[in-house]
């Protein structure tokens, strides 16, 4: 359900980028979605479609790719890839992970038209 607020934040950034780059209509938005965010891809696509109505991103396709989680152990400093169910450090077995990747949602690129 948090997909709606993510979609709204995504749209705001898409509108800013489109304006800054002279895009009148946006056709494709490519996003990298961190695994930690637990985003349901279908829900985000649907929410983005809904918030985009009447904007430069109306009808734009949202291409999502997932970014795996990376963590640094607060205990021993080891870098590792935790799973959503098991955050234990492979070196010292503490579960004291500081998430270093897979926590953000990033637009990687937009494709659009510079003319109506």
């Amino acid at each position, binding site marked *: *359900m*948090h997909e*709606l*607020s*993510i979609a709204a*934040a*995504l749209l*705001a*950034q898409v509108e800013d*980028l489109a304006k800054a*780059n*002279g*895009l009148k209509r946006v*056709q494709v938005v490519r*996003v990298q979605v961190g695994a*930690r*965010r*637990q985003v349901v891809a279908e829900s985000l696509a649907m929410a983005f479609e809904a918030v985009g109505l009447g904007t430069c991103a109306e009808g734009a396709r949202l291409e999502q790719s997932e970014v795996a989680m990376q963590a640094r152990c*607060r*205990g021993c400093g080891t870098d590792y890839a935790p799973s*959503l*169910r*098991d*955050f*234990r450090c492979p070196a010292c077995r*503490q*579960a*004291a*992970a500081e998430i270093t990747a897979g*926590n*953000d*949602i*990033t*637009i*990687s*690129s*937009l*494709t*659009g*038209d*510079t*003319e109506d």
Partner: protein
Amino acid sequence: MPNVTVIAKPLLQKNDQIAAANRRLLEAKGLVGINVMSAPGSGKTTLLQKTIACLGPARCAVLVGDLQTTRDADRLAQAGAPVVQINTGRGCHLTAAEVADGLATLDLTGRSFLFIENVGNMVCPAGFALGEHKSVVLMSLPEGDDKVAKYPTLFQCADVVLLSKIDLAAAMEFDESRVREDLAQVNSRAPMLRLSTRSGEGFQAWLDWLAAAISAPK
């Protein structure tokens, strides 16, 4: 005339920026921000009512998020601390901007603790920083002993886990060792404190934890 623009900027940067500003505001006024998260009905509001009574209302301020109603704020206001209810409408978690708006209407002068009672939800709040210094995750005994395994990302971000309503233990089949095993897999740095707001059992350890949180360097 297609055109491609490539950029790389975290989408939630704006939320994180506002969260950082909230944190600075709290620090400038000498407060510690405590984000309280749990499922609906785990006892967040009751915990805060009792906590405010123990700490003294003059030391506390509260922001409380719900989709609808001011019922939680009404309950918390009875404890005597200033309270702002944030109705998120459709939002299933608080955002840093909502907290910033709430902070603007609270008189924080001379207070030590800002409690932020998040919307009851075990998935969405974990992803949105609000400006807190500490995250508290509450689970009540009647919810069952599989909550940590089912919602690991929420427990992973906790600085302390509270097991509430332990006065109901006799009526429940609740395997606490299972909870501790699951917690060891997702978060071994957060202590798990058992407490009952009704009997008062375990409450002092929670107050001690809060006292340590306010004296810790931020």
